[in-house]
């Protein structure tokens, strides 16, 4: 037993290093723990915590690797956002954003119920841990992580590498970014922050890889159609939709040359991973068409669906006929709910509203739904629209849709050759 104890004490000493703590003290305390029946591993950890606590070694962010424990850092909160998540049926608020010190900028996520620091504060964070997320190290702040606001001192020369990126990359890029994009729409509104009125400009911008919403907290005299380079902006997300945010600290240059703007094209499971996006294009198979698809009537006042000629708000009304589809579209890895309005529905089923009315007159609404199902189920669709993420997954509001025709024999032939070739 003594030799075992001595081995543990050696280990503790080597972890603590030259801290001016005597070996005898450690051994005495360790034996006390053992007498109390504490398992040696646990005793070791307790002692390291106790004596190590006297001197905390600060780690620079650039040195943090994934899956490290007990990380102590001093850093500045660059951004701080909240997100609602669902844990075992309970809604919980978590905080996330960016941290920076002299050496790097890293994303963080805090699982604590509170986060006692604001954007711009310099804080000391003790006992954090790290994870890898989408190829970047992420600082995690748990229940047992300490956050202390430091009143004095700023962190000099914060390394904020401004990363050049395309719209499609903002989903996985952290920290300040530089983008070149075209302003597709812009509107102005006034908001009040901390008692002062401020003008904000928001709209949609895009490049050849996709589109995003933006908010400018400063008047850069932007107009629809302008092509701009925005340096030092950030990407925030709302229901998965990227929002490019910038203010007077960002640099905005107008560019002469025009750029083309395209829809972001992604595999469907990737879209679900991203949660959402503005004007995205994706493909998947229709595996389910929900009951409430097909012919519906809406209230002429509020556009709500009505049942038996009655609106839940406006009472008896003369319903406005409409068509819609609610489908589950799935690529074998993930699924989205895809919602089509009348225009898209008419195109997909190759029938217009009056055709549908005729069918209903002869065979009822079920008959129409049957026809729609026969036409679309198991078909592969290419869809374009806006996607929103929530706790149940992603919903795609379709703007354009087309059936993708598959030449089965040709594809099977080519595929067979490829498989045989690689054996």
């Amino acid at each position, binding site marked *: 037993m003594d030799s075992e104890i001595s081995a543990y004490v050696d280990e503790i000493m080597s972890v603590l290093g030259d801290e001016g703590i005597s070996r005898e003290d450690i051994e005495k305390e360790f034996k006390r723990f053992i007498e109390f029946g504490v398992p040696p591993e646990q005793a070791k950890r307790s002692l390291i915590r106790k004596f190590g606590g006297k001197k905390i070694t600060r780690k620079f962010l650039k040195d943090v690797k994934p899956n490290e424990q007990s990380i102590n850092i001093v850093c500045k909160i660059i951004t701080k956002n909240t997100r609602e998540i*669902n844990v*075992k*049926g309970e809604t919980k608020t978590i905080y996330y954003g960016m941290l920076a010190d002299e050496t790097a900028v890293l994303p963080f996520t805090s699982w604590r119920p509170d986060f006692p620091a604001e954007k711009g504060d310099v804080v000391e964070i003790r006992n954090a841990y790290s994870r*890898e997320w989408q*190829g970047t190290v992420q600082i995690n702040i748990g229940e047992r992580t300490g956050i202390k606001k430091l009143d004095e001192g700023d962190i000099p020369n914060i390394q904020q590498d401004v990363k050049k990126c395309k719209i499609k990359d903002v989903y996985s890029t952290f920290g300040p970014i530089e983008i070149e994009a075209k302003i597709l729409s812009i509107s102005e509104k006034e908001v009040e922050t901390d008692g002062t009125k401020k003008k904000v400009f928001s709209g949609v911008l895009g490049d050849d890889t996709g589109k995003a919403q933006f908010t400018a907290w400063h008047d850069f005299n932007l107009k629809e159609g302008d092509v701009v380079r925005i340096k030092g902006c950030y990407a925030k997300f709302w229901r998965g939709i990227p929002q490019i945010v910038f203010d007077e600290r960002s640099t905005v240059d107008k560019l002469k040359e025009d750029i083309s703007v395209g829809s972001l094209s992604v595999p469907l*499971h*990737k879209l*679900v*991973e991203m949660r959402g996006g503005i004007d995205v294009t994706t493909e998947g*198979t229709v*595996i*389910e068409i929900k009951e409430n698809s097909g012919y519906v009537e809406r209230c002429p006042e509020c556009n709500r669906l009505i049942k038996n000629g009655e609106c839940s708000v406006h009472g008896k009304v003369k319903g406005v006929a409409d068509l819609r589809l609610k489908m*589950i579209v*799935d*690529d*074998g*890895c*993930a*699924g*989205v*709910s895809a919602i089509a309005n009348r225009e898209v529905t008419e195109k997909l089923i190759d029938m217009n509203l009056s055709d549908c009315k005729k069918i209903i007159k002869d065979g009822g609404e079920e008959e129409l739904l049957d026809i729609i*199902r026969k036409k679309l*189920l*198991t078909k*592969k669709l290419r869809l374009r629209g806006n996607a929103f993420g929530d*706790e*149940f*997954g992603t919903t795609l509001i379709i703007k354009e849709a087309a059936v993708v025709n*598959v030449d*089965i*024999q040709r*594809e*099977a*032939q080519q*595929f*067979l050759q490829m*498989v*045989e070739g690689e*054996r």
Partner: protein
Amino acid sequence: MKREGAWRIFANEYNDSNVVIRGTGEKKPSYVITPLGAKINRLFVVGVLTDVESLSGENELLRAHVSDPTGIYTLYSGQFQPDVTATLLNIEIPSFLAFVGKVRIFEPEEGMLYLSVRPEVVYEVDSSARDRWILETCKSTWERINAVRDAMNLSNPSINELVKLGYSRQLSEGVIRAIKSYKNIDVDRYLNSIEEALRYLLPEEEGVLPDEIGIETEEEKHEEKDDMEETVLEIIKEVEGDKGAQWDIIVEKCQQLGMDKDTVEEIISSLMDKGLVYEPVLGMIKTT
């Protein structure tokens, strides 16, 4: 709770699986991990509905079989899926059927695992839907084969490494679990399935006179099959107790006689079709 994706899996890959992740807590999903690393909670299949059988008087529980080019899916539909049950009772047999369903895991005792499907939605389709599904399932099986191969080639396989190679997170998780849990993953078996399934989609190759050669080999096949059916039936009679014979034991005994697993399964289902045996509970075969 996010919607689970619907995997495209051939029946043989699904039925070969013996690794499950059980959801604990009220709403946590369970998963079946296939040998090729599909991590399935939900699946989408298009095949041929070959039989529907009521397991209780009031059609409270139905069992149906749907076949694809590689094997057979077993479906159970009960009173909680009234639409599915109604559709299955009214549909003509055989017909092309598509279903979206959840994995159904039955483990009467440790090491005995019976997989089937609880359909959420079923609908009749045409043969072109089935062909499209076969093609899509070939592609997705091929992707899994590549993911398993890549994982085995990595010096330190991890979920993140596979994600970096371009595989989805769900598949990467499944593949890492599969290479840990399955000792020898028989990739060739699934390559053969892909090739067979693809040939199924192509017209008969030229140069073979299907009417002459075809008939002869068909006849031979029939004779051979009859012999094997007799053998399998004998084995079942030999090992069955009051409750019947365990599926696994039958397969094992037959394998000792040189039959492969697929053939045995085919023969058992053929015996079932002829009414010589039946399945009183899932995984048990009894002679009539």
